[in-house]
């Protein structure tokens, strides 16, 4: 009796396996599609938007959605649809930009703490603990008061207050990986430290880091909107979901469309990122969820 051993065992890489796992999560895929669309739209917003975000039409203030103004107009007769597009663009800029800051600071601090250990590690981790326990939004407000209100400063402020989680994550991974079996084996075989870092440590950190960033983006977005809501966000006439909602609340009685559209797009964007984040986490760490 001979069993044909003709099936080729496909070498499945970590990433393609992860991708397949991700695809099985339908909500995550939907979220990814949504995000891809809005990123493309945001890049091309100046060309896509039917009106500039600050162009007033005084004869058409407070208009409900119509053919001319798809999502209606605000108190200065500005097109709500265009303003929403720009608000989305700003939100994404802050979301992604802040995570770049978080990545840089978090990785640097976490790696130093993880590698060096000892006093520096303890010191850095104490600092991280303080940042963790502190209601960071307050600090964001204070930072913005000091640094001024603008897209870039808000982005930096969010990054400055949000690196604690990333640092902890990186530190933990570095400490674990430093002494992991396969790393020790490579060391025993004579591999250089830098080679080890490049080939073994970094790639294994990517997964959790990506997940952390994916959750950090909606965090950055809601902080930006939150700042705008209390009047400390980007300067008008630059739109932000926060200040559109904040302003719209005052007109909620007669003109709820001014609030409904920003609320919907804001909520959908947050949801999309979160589903994608969930999907990424499940895909990259198959041992998690029940």
């Amino acid at each position, binding site marked *: 009796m001979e069993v044909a051993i003709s099936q080729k065992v496909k070498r499945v890489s970590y990433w393609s396996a992860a991708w397949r796992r991700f695809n099985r999560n339908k909500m995550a895929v939907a979220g990814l599609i949504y995000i891809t669309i809005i990123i493309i739209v945001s890049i091309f917003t100046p060309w896509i938007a039917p009106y500039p975000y600050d162009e007033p039409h005084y004869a058409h203030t407070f208009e409900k959605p119509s053919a001319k103004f798809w999502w209606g107009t605000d108190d200065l007769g500005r097109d709500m649809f265009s303003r929403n597009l720009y608000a989305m663009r700003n939100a994404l800029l802050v979301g992604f930009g802040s995570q770049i800051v978080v990545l840089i600071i978090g990785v640097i601090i976490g790696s130093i703490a993880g590698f060096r250990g000892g006093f520096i590690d303890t010191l850095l981790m104490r600092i991280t603990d303080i940042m963790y326990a502190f209601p960071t*939004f*307050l600090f964001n407000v*204070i930072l913005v008061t000091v640094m001024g209100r603008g897209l870039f400063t808000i982005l930096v402020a969010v990054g400055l207050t949000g690196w604690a989680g990333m640092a902890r994550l990186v530190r933990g991974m570095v400490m674990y990986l430093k002494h992991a079996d396969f790393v020790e084996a490579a060391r025993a075989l004579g591999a250089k430290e830098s080679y080890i870092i490049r080939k073994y440590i970094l790639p294994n950190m990517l997964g959790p880091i990506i997940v952390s960033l994916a959750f950090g983006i909606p965090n950055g977005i*809601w902080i930006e909107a939150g700042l705008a809501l209390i009047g400390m966000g980007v300067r008008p006439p630059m739109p932000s979901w926060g200040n559109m*909602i904040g302003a719209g609340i005052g007109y909620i009685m007669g003109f709820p469309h001014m609030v409904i559209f920003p*609320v919907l797009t804001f909520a959908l964007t947050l949801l999309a990122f979160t589903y994608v984040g969930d999907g990424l986490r499940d895909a990259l760490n198959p041992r998690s969820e029940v």
Partner: protein
Amino acid sequence: MGLIKYIIRRLFTIFLSIVIVIIITYILMWFAPGEFFNIAQFQASAGKVSTLTPEQLQVLIKGFEEKYGLNVPLWKQVWNYLKDAFRFKFGPSFSNPNEPIEVQIARRFPVTFTLAILSMTLAVLLGIPLGIIAALKRNTWVDYVTMFFSMIGSIIPAYLIGVIMVLILSVWLRWLPTSGWESPKQMIMPVIAVGLGPLAVIARFMRSSLLDILNQDYIRTAYAKGGTDRAIIMRHALRNSLIPIVTIIGPQLAFLFTGTVFIENLFRVPGLGQLFVNAASQRDYPLLVTSTFILSLSVMLMNLLVDIVYAFLDPRIKYE
């Protein structure tokens, strides 16, 4: 004894953290544009050019600087502030000369505290049962629906929830008033808005915690054996899965206090969050530093409390 030492160590860490935070905040304020103390601000002019000569203005400014302790170098100002801060004396506030800051805070703190406690209670009282039901009925429509709504609740920020509720419940259905903090009717929306986030997180965590325990071998075998043991085993599983919940309540508290900042503004609740926002926009630095101090202290102390409760609940925890 380990517990007492642990508490003392934690209190010390909290103390140190707050001091560092205050120093950093003070220094940041100092460099903010518009001067720490603005002469024109003092005039609080609604449009009056000064009929005062420079001499006269100088007299007033000197008095003002003395009153607010601004006639000493920065490091001394920070030291003076810290000296009194932990005795809860914060000095006069720029924007409100009627009352010292501690009086304003004392009046508003109970409001925010009530809002926070009510919201947290809602989150715990509803979140835990929801998580349990979802776990027990896992992979049925009950599970999916509950988890979907808790997903939404944990992602959508509190103010967005608040706005949506106002849109639906006040403007469209006219069931609830749009603002205020007196009657229970007025309290419903703020409490839900603040509490929904933690509720969602607790529900999801409860679900996975219970499922984790239920999936463990000894439970499964005991359960499979059947009989009256089943109920006992279920109670045992529930109790064990509740304990970890306490660990996530802590981080939720910081989140919750942040939520109150927005919700108080949205629903005109006269609490600390409203004070903080007013202070930020008016650049009332003493008030800004102090409300940050109080809010952070509250969060850290409540975290400590939660940890102590956890220590009592879980006999396995040892504090060294």
